[in-house]
């Protein structure tokens, strides 16, 4: 991949990198036909940001030897700490840099960023990258009942009322008004801290649609980067959200770029299952993590991964082949073996090649997935699952899922309200040529729900 940006755009590019640095430590550079995508995820996998620059943004944009299933383009993972300093001082970049060239050369494992500055000075930086599949969070914006579009400065002004150290805020939406207030975990801090609440009238928004009254709580710090970006480009910010606990998406777009930040939100503590043991000293409410999904192949069974709420910050991953027949669910064999790597952080980039069989990078997950297609069984084969170290919480969740799927078993409280973060949708964020699919659904004790979704999945699969 090779692209050239001119002076003005370098500043916008730099701003995007600043915003991404607020989210996570690593930056994924993903050159595609649609444009260059810069992505980042935080370590808890509760925040994801993507800045997509279309080819029009660049003076020149060459993907190099492209084209087949996109497998030829290199996807790089860089450490933000090595890229951010290059774009740190935006005002001096604005003054001095006339052009910037970014190219990725696979053989040498390097991204070359070259600044052509005034007075004939050229600065070349080579940053090592790790080749890694693009990660992305898929979020069905079109399915969200609540949509707000705020003019450029509105949200930025609102967040100035909160101290810079404020971690989380709660956005409440009803059809009469929208309010933002700060959020406190734990009663201890509650008493002595200052509470702030701002109330906005729907008229202040360019577009206001509230289908479901909700209170969503998310991390403000991670959002500030995007708000600063939107303000500097005078772009309105769109907010897509649904009920409490579901992820919220903030996005800005323009002719040549699109930026999205998806944040997980806290669910109510009441929904937590009683059987989940409290292992951490602070009873944090489970945090919903974004689904990390990789694309299945269209024709046969791919797999999708659902990641559940990390109760107590542990994360559970369950891999399930897409084509399902719930009737054949062999619950018993799967349940005990919680196929859940205790340390999920290694299991982030989920990869499939263009072929059928999914290939996963992290070795732990390798063992979880069926190496071959199992078209008609909805089960994680326990032969493939090593007994990894797991915690009781994750076991419970895993087994709850499977129990819910079997119509015979009757579960009482634990599964109530657990949301499957498996997503299924067409078209929303088709990044490459192969269709993405994800499934949005709810697992409750009633197994039928998941069946319905699976059927939908089946019917929609080619």
């Amino acid at each position, binding site marked *: 991949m090779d692209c050239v940006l001119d002076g003005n755009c370098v500043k916008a590019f730099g701003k995007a990198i600043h915003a991404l640095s607020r989210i996570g430590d690593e930056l994924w550079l993903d050159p595609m036909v649609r444009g260059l995508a810069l992505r980042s995820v935080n370590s808890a996998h509760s925040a994801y940001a993507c800045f997509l620059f279309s080819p029009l943004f660049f003076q020149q944009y060459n993907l190099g030897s492209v084209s087949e299933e996109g497998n030829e383009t290199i996807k790089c993972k860089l450490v933000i700490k090595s890229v951010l300093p290059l774009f740190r001082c935006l005002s001096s970049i604005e003054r001095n840099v006339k052009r910037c060239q970014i190219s990725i050369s696979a053989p040498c494992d390097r991204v070359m960023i070259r600044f052509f500055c005034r007075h004939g000075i050229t600065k070349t930086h080579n940053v090592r990258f790790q080749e890694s599949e693009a990660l992305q969070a898929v979020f069905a914006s079109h399915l969200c009942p609540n949509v707000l579009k705020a003019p450029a400065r509105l949200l930025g002004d609102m967040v*100035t*009322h909160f101290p810079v150290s404020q971690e989380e805020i709660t956005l409440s939406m009803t059809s009469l008004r929208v309010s933002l207030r700060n959020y406190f975990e734990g009663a201890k801090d509650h008493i*002595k*801290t*200052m*509470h*702030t609440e701002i109330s*906005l009238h729907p008229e202040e928004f360019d577009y206001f649609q509230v289908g479901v009254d909700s209170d969503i709580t998310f991390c403000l710090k991670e959002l500030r980067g995007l708000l600063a970006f939107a303000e500097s480009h005078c772009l309105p910010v769109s907010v897509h959200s649904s009920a409490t606990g579901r992820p919220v998406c903030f996005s800005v777009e323009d002719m040549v770029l699109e930026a999205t930040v998806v944040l997980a939100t806290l669910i109510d503590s009441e929904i937590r299952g009683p059987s989940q043991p409290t292992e951490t000293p602070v009873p944090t409410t489970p945090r919903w993590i974004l689904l990390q999904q990789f694309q299945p192949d269209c024709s046969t069974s791919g797999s999708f991964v659902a990641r559940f709420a990390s109760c107590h910050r542990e994360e559970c991953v369950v891999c399930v082949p897409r084509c399902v027949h719930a009737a054949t669910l062999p619950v018993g064999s799967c349940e005990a073996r919680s196929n859940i790597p205790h340390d999920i952080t290694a299991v982030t980039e989920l990869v499939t090649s263009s072929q059928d069989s999914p290939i996963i990078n992290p070795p732990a997950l390798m063992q979880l997935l069926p190496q071959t297609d199992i078209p008609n069984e909805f089960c994680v084969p326990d032969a493939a699952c090593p007994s990894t170290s797991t915690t009781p919480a994750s076991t419970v969740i895993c087994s709850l899922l499977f129990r819910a799927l079997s119509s015979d078993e009757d579960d009482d409280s634990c599964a109530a309200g657990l949301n499957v973060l498996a997503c299924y949708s067409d078209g929303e964020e088709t990044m490459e040529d192969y269709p993405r699919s994800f499934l949005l659904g709810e697992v409750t004790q009633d197994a039928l729900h998941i069946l319905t979704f699976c059927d939908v999945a089946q019917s929609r699969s080619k």
Partner: protein
Amino acid sequence: MKFRGKIVDVACLNHFSRVITTISKLTKMCVLRLTPDNLFFVLSEKVANGGVSMWCELSQANFFDEYQMEGVSPEDNEICLEVTPENLSRALKTVQSAKSVKVKLTKKHCPCLTIAAELPTLSSISRVVTHDVPVDVIPRRLWHEFIEPSVPDFDVSIYLPPLKTMKNVVDRMKNLSNFLVIEANLNGEMNLKIETDLVSVTTHFKDLGNPPWGDDSSQDGGPSQGRDPDSMAEARVDIRRLQQFLMGQQVNPSKAMCNIVHQRILHLILLHEDVSLQYFIPAVA
């Protein structure tokens, strides 16, 4: 106990915020005394503060358009609250452009001073911002700790040089020593001195002028009258306290002066039309 005040004028709001910001730079926590006519920010002398104390008096009529209060009881028509001025300052800073700001004593999760502001917007409905600053109510039996300090029997009283200049000098001196000697005489001369093993630095100020306290009967004008105009009264103080005082000054005072009780106390006074701030720094040996 009830308190309700409303500020409508932008300039008053600005001034009020700046006073509170000044106070927040001086101390982390202080006591707010509310009376029907005035607000007082008081820091009482405690070992924990390093012996400094502060008294700031604001006349409520100069800031609030509406002001209603009901004290603890009809005889003690006052409210005493312990508050963190920084929270108040932060809350006020964000609402500088408000159409109106109401300050109320409320009870939410704990007793709070609620600052509710209406911000102007493009549409007809204003935005409402509410900040709840937690406070602690001080019981009546402790009120005696927060009374107005009496002006000490000073030896010399002198107007201060421009605060900015003084701040620059003190900032530089802070790098060299922890203690500074401030001395002044009745001839309008003041010196700031530091002395270490390696170096001693003195900054001289002249023609500062001395405030005419002498006629005031509450002061004991005697010793000052008979005092040799050239003899210096000095106080050796912790330089950080002095620096803190000078750093926080956001409001340009109409009058700035200090009274020195020889080797005892440095009493700094800043006067404004509607605000007066007194700061006491004890002298160290």
